[in-house]
């Protein structure tokens, strides 16, 4: 079923030196893992982080019965970009109760893809709000589930999306389509940073 190879057969080159992150966020069942799988060179792996709601550190394991430690599982995949750069894609749960995981995942991330199902568009509001507050660059990708189609203007309006945020439609099952989503994001980040260079004051917003 998986066309990608397992990690064991795909070690990185010895010169790999720079890990990069892109986070894919969205509601449950919106296709985050599907998108990661379609572009990843490894079978997507799952791991987890255990944290207190305060998010400061791993919880005190001895006191686990009395503390509210929360365990969050997330998927990730990998794309070797060149001899030095390796991109990791993280599929992150979008629900509000996982905000403390987001803060950690977003630190140092290139940017985020908000994956949207137009049948459940309000699942995406919180994700977008969080990214805007973080100053994390993002694009919105509407995963086509074959449901009723909406015009880009309708989606923008429903999401109350800032006009400068790119909006694309995609098929998360397709490698080419998912690849284009990632390219759209990185081009967007590049544009933002190029603008920063011209107008240094914008830095303060990031």
């Amino acid at each position, binding site marked *: 079923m998986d066309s990608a190879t397992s990690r064991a057969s795909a070690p990185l080159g010895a010169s*790999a030196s720079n890990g990069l992150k892109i986070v894919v966020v969205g509601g449950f069942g919106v296709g985050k893992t599907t998108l990661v799988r379609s572009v990843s060179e490894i079978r997507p792996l799952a*791991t987890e982080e255990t944290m207190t709601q305060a998010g400061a550190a791993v919880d005190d394991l001895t006191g686990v019965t009395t503390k509210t430690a929360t365990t969050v599982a997330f998927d990730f995949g990998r*794309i070797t970009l060149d001899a030095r*750069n390796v991109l990791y894609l993280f599929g992150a749960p979008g629900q509000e109760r996982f905000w403390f995981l987001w803060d950690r995942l977003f630190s*140092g991330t290139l940017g985020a893809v908000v994956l949207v199902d137009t049948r459940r568009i309000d699942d995406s509001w919180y994700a977008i709000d969080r990214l805007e507050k973080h100053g994390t660059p993002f694009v919105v990708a509407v995963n086509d589930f074959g449901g009723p189609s909406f015009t880009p203007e309708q989606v923008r309006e429903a999401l109350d999306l800032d006009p400068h945020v790119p909006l694309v439609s995609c098929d998360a099952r397709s490698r080419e389509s998912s690849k284009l989503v990632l390219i759209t994001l990185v081009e967007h980040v590049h544009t933002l940073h190029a603008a920063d260079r011209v107008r240094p004051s914008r830095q303060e917003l990031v």
Partner: protein
Amino acid sequence: MSGPGSRPGRDDSPDRLYTLTGGRSRAGTDSPFDLVTLVVAESAPVPGMQSEHAAILRMTERPTAVVEIAAELRLPVGITKILLADLLATGRVSARHPRHQAAVPDLELLEQVLVGLRNL
């Protein structure tokens, strides 16, 4: 929270995780490791070494990200970072930290990323 029981670490008792790290449970915000820090073994496993440490050294003969190590060990990321910190402190592994920082635009790096993605 609901979820499949096969998630890494999910079935592990806290006691086991506690033992793995010698009772330490904090790999908090001051940890030098990012999820995508690439770890490289600087020495081979030696007899008597804790099995998780030995497993990490075997796994990192080629550069391997912290998050991949955690997934392979089926341990939570925080516990994995503690084990890695032990190995780093004794010089058994080296760490290649991510270059990208959101607040510092690196257009050249972004262009490299775009080239890599377009060549996929």
